[in-house]
């Protein structure tokens, strides 16, 4: 059951081979036994999960089903879910019970899916290793000394360790793709605006995008079918015809043009990741694809641009945590200003405070043009590079990360080194393009390697097709870490 695809689980549920309550209990038991090892979940609520499972079983009897009805899905703890503690990985929200559902949660609820728990994450999604979580680090299921990646590290570890059937994540600078790569699973960040941000706790609003994390491209497509959709409560949600993201999975890849950006294969790419990516490209050639050399000359600027724009937006978004309306309030203070300063100083962790400081500085009087405006202009240059590239190719491929998972604590004291680990993923967010990561081998240290696939705007169905065809002829995505037996 644990290695079944979502399609297989759905079929087992509909044919009554297993009930949703049984399947949910199976995962709850695994979480009870194994979560102390991985720390993938912040909150589990057996009663609420089983209530949803019982409701799903009723729907299944009445045949009112969707592909995900009765299937246990883990939710990143960034999504507000009515009645669930929703912490965003922060002390600031450690006691916050969400009074409403995020749009993503509503979508899963109406599909009849079961919320199996809220997954660990970097605090306010700011981090690349899950080490900034107030609730402790997550262990990479492939090696407990290694990071799972971040910020959706709990979701990636939960999928990898078979503690859920699939999970949600969010990606502002690589937070779905990088942990997917480091934990050996598949993850997709859709085009900006495809999934509603309503009820998804804000980090950098012009970059944040939710997406699915799962074992295979086929599973991602089924998840995206549920997650995507217009929502008027998100002012940047796009009004489009709804799509079936599974529709192109089985198309052959004859004639597919793959763009390889030379900047993604230059210095900085580790000696074990490079050959795995090259081997994947060779596999694609066997499937009928051709390769085009392309260039993304401004991609090297994506990290500096990101570390102006994302903190600027974050400093504004996080000004709402004032210890007045909800969230943490310091226990002792002398006046109102002191209450704000102490509540925020004690409620936020180091990385979050660092980014609030950067953002406040770049937006402050006299610096706006030099930092924020300049970064927005270079953002356009980065997006234009992709426009040019997509005139010559259908998808872009390269590594998701420069190395396999680094060790816990390795980059903790050096924010700049930590930031550089997102070198291949950030440009995609700045351009608003869809990007995904799929398992593509193992490094010298037996840790997973991710192949990144970048598509043009709204090309998710084609990217899923491209990923699915690769997964028909390779078995990297079916590999399972040792030591995950319950």
């Amino acid at each position, binding site marked *: 059951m644990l290695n079944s695809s979502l399609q297989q689980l759905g079929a087992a549920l509909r044919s009554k081979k297993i009930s949703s309550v049984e399947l949910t209990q199976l995962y709850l038991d695994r979480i009870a036994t194994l979560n102390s090892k991985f720390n993938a979940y912040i909150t589990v609520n057996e009663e609420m999960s089983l209530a949803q499972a019982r409701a799903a079983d009723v729907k299944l009897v009445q045949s009112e089903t969707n592909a995900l009805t009765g299937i246990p899905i883990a939710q990143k703890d960034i999504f507000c879910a009515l009645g669930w503690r929703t912490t965003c990985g922060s002390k600031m929200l450690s006691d916050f019970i969400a009074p409403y559902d995020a749009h993503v949660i509503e979508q899963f609820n109406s599909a009849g899916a079961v919320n199996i728990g809220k997954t660990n994450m970097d605090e306010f999604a700011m981090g690349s290793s899950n080490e900034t979580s107030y609730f402790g680090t997550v262990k990479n299921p492939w090696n407990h000394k290694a990071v799972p990646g971040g910020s959706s590290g709990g979701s990636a570890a939960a999928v990898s360790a078979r503690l859920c059937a699939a999970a949600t994540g969010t990606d502002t600078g690589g937070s779905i793709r990088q942990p997917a790569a480091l934990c050996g699973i598949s993850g997709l960040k859709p085009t900006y605006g495809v999934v509603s941000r309503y009820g998804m706790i804000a980090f950098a609003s012009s970059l944040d995008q939710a997406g699915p994390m799962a074992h295979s491209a086929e599973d991602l497509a089924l998840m995206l079918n549920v997650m995507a959709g217009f929502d008027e409560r998100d002012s940047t949600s796009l009004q489009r015809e709804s799509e079936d993201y599974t529709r192109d999975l089985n198309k052959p890849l004859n004639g597919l043009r793959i763009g390889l950006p030379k900047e993604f294969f230059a210095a900085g790419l580790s000696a074990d990741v490079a050959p795995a990516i090259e081997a994947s490209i060779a596999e694609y050639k066997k499937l009928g694809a051709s390769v085009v050399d392309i260039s993304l000359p401004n991609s090297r600027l994506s990290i500096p641009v990101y570390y102006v724009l994302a903190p600027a937006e974050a400093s504004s978004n996080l000004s709402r945590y004032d210890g007045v309306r909800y969230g943490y309030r310091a226990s002792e*203070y002398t006046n109102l200003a002191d209450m704000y300063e102490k509540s925020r100083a004690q409620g936020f962790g180091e990385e979050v405070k660092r980014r609030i400081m950067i953002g406040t500085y770049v937006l402050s009087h006299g610096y706006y043009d030099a930092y924020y405006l300049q970064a927005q202009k270079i953002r356009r240059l980065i997006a234009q590079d992709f426009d040019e590239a997509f005139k010559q190719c259908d998808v872009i491929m390269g590594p998701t990360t420069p190395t396999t998972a680094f060790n816990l604590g390795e980059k903790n004291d050096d924010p700049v080194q930590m930031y550089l680990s997102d070198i291949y993923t950030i440009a995609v967010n700045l351009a608003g393009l869809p990007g995904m990561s799929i398992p593509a081998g193992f490094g010298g240290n037996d840790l997973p390697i991710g192949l990144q696939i970048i598509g043009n705007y709204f090309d998710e169905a084609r990217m899923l097709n491209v990923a699915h065809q690769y997964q028909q002829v390779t078995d990297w995505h079916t590999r399972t870490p040792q030591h995950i037996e319950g």
Partner: protein
Amino acid sequence: MSLSINDVYKVARLARLGMSEQEAQTAHDQLSNIFGLIAEMQAVDTNGIAPMSHAQDITQRLRKDVVTELNQREQFQAAAPQAKNGLYLVPQVIE
């Protein structure tokens, strides 16, 4: 550009983040490194380039000016650190 320790205090005050002397010193060192990383941006010629704030060039949607939110004051105030009679309680501001 170089960041002074006074800049750090000023920004912390603007951001309403209490900060000890030692924290300010650490923040100063780390922020200086990060601004070193960001400085690479300054050399880029962006004359005539329009700033990009969103990936899609969409215009803001408008809706009818009608009430769409239900009154959920009690439910929302249940999450407040201190509330009384439908009001949020904060330290006294006016003597």
